């Protein structure tokens, strides 16, 4: 059983929902990432979504764009990101790690070579924002061979037909984008999300995570009431941006926020 599947199974039997914080790898500098991952796990993260910096993050708002730019100033590559996960795995062999990013760095590496290297580094799942199921056949096959879960997006514009397409290729969980827009926007409509998720459950048995627009314990709790996992990104990355000059204080500050979000997720409203 994959680490992601195991984690969702354990949470389900404990009647809990997953909290998945997102950070961009190498932001604001490469040395920050691994200690920060450990701090977030200690504060209650169930899975970690690690952003792979990309020069053209088309689906991201200004907060995560800036994070990519900070990481790229340090020339953080996909190879470096795998090294970070390898280091993280030296002391944490349980917490699933998902890479989130854009296709091109993986495309240039080569699907098969990348998937083997990623699996060896201890990566459990990959989410490529600009790879819809229609183009993902070869990619998904390569990830399967390396036992890496492929996480796909669904959104408010996805109809039943698209839900089926995604369900057939997805493994680990499905990531539902809560609104039409980019990361970091403030447009969450929990009622609309609940309606769409009810529909989605008819098309898949996979756990469903919801991301985009979750900014505090309250919204985390509202989403946890209807989803299996709550993904929080821009709020955390914004805190990193505010602490660029004091990188040593980043793990503790974000841990405090993750703990707050945890309490929200654990009291679904």
């Amino acid at each position, binding site marked *: 059983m994959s680490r992601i599947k195991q984690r969702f199974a354990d949470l389900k039997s404990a009647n809990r929902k997953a909290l998945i914080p997102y950070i961009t790898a190498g932001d604001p500098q490469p040395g920050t990432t691994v200690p920060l991952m450990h701090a977030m796990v200690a504060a209650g993260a169930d899975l970690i979504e690690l952003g792979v910096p*990309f*020069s*053209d*993050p*088309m*689906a*991201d*708002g*200004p907060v995560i*764009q800036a994070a990519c*730019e900070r990481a*790229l100033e340090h020339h953080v*590559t*996909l*190879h470096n990101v795998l090294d970070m996960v390898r280091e993280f795995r030296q002391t944490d062999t349980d917490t699933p790690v998902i890479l989130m990013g*854009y*296709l*091109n*760095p*993986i*495309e*240039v*590496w080569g699907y098969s070579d990348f998937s083997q290297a990623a699996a060896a580094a201890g990566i459990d799942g990959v989410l490529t*924002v*600009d*790879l*819809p199921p*229609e*183009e993902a056949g070869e990619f998904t096959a390569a990830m399967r061979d390396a036992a890496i879960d492929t996480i*796909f*997006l*669904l*959104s*408010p*514009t*996805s*109809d039943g037909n*698209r839900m089926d397409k*995604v369900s057939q290729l997805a493994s680990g969980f499905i990531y539902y*984008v809560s609104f*039409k*827009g*980019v990361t970091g*926007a403030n447009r969450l409509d929990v009622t609309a999300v609940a309606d769409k998720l009810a529909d989605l459950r008819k098309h898949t048995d996979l756990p469903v995570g919801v991301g985009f627009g979750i900014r505090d314990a309250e919204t985390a709790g509202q989403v946890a009431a209807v989803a299996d996992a709550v993904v929080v990104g821009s709020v955390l990355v914004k805190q990193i941006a505010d602490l660029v000059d004091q990188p040593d204080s980043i793990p503790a500050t974000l841990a405090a926020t993750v703990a707050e979000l945890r309490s929200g997720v654990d009291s679904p409203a």
Partner: protein
Amino acid sequence: MTQATAESASQENYPDERGHFGPYGGRFVAETLMLPLDELNQAYRKYMKDPEFLAELDEDLAQFVGRPSPLYLAARWSEQVGGARIYLKREDLNHTGAHKINNTVGQALLAKRMGKTRIIAETGAGQHGVASATVAARLGMECVVYMGAEDIKRQAINVYRMRMLGAEVVSVKSGSKTLKDALNEALRDWVTNVDNTFYIIGTVAGPHPYPVMVRDFQTVIGRETRQQIMQAEGRLPDALVACVGGGSNAIGLFHPFIDDPSVAFYGVEGGGDGVETGRHAAPLCAGSSGVLHGNRTYLMEDSDGQISETHSISAGLDYPGVGPEHAWLKDTGRASYVAITDTEALDAFHGLTRTEGIIPALESSHALAYAGKLAATLGKDKIIVVNLSGRGDKDIHTIADLDGIKI
């Protein structure tokens, strides 16, 4: 990519239903845009078969754009460069001064039919932005144009034109602050406002159906050229030459000749300081395959798949990708792609201006420069057609700066 050469013969079957030209093209976007792109594709398929729509498009191209554009024999300039006779397809004489309007007129009609009330566009040199703002003004639609902060600096005249036409010009300050970043920002707007917004992409790139749709709107260039050269010379040309940024003016000229093997195609990329310096905008000459802005194509990228910054004197060529059909035409060998440096383009700019009384856009000057080189190797019995894709008024400040003149 390797199988490309074996399959080349006719291009008529490309792209496939999902927008693939061999391994290139496709639809690489976030989930939210997948259904809207399906809807766009269906509308485009439907209306391109609708006699009423096509009649309205033809009427607009004739009465608003001013088509057909002349095919002009540049006799004095041909004489100067020596060798083959060079004809210029005068897209610079279109309303708004470039070929871009052929496409925006078409997409705007489609936007209206689809019930959209807001138009967005990206722009590099500003020509596509102006052409989009123009059709939006004419149809009474809201228009937002995304433009890199660097390009806003070097294309001040076009920025002012867009604002006069009622468009909001948004300065894009992320990344390299040029066309690719403007495209990123336009995609972010579209994903947010997709319900009421039509995104007019200005070139034959982006997710399916844009590369094929923009091609279809631009092939009026090649269809007219074919008729005009038959009338003037009684035969097809030996070579077609066009500049390639995203590649819409080139595809527009080339495509109606695709099954005429005697007609050679030359796409001319922005060579910047020279391809060997690394400071250029020539992905087909010196790039590699990758995925950006919704399609797989040749890109300028580093070994980690990060998109490289490009350099060209011409804002309209300053783009790290290229339309997927060009990638395919390169691999199949149907078209040749070459690069012209900033300096060579400037020489051609001045050469044409002085011998023919035509001031070409810096983009088109790249095509002229290569055509001049090519003509010199051919006899006077050979015919070359160059797509003079735009006029140079917008570049006057760039040229004046280089000459040390303040205007």
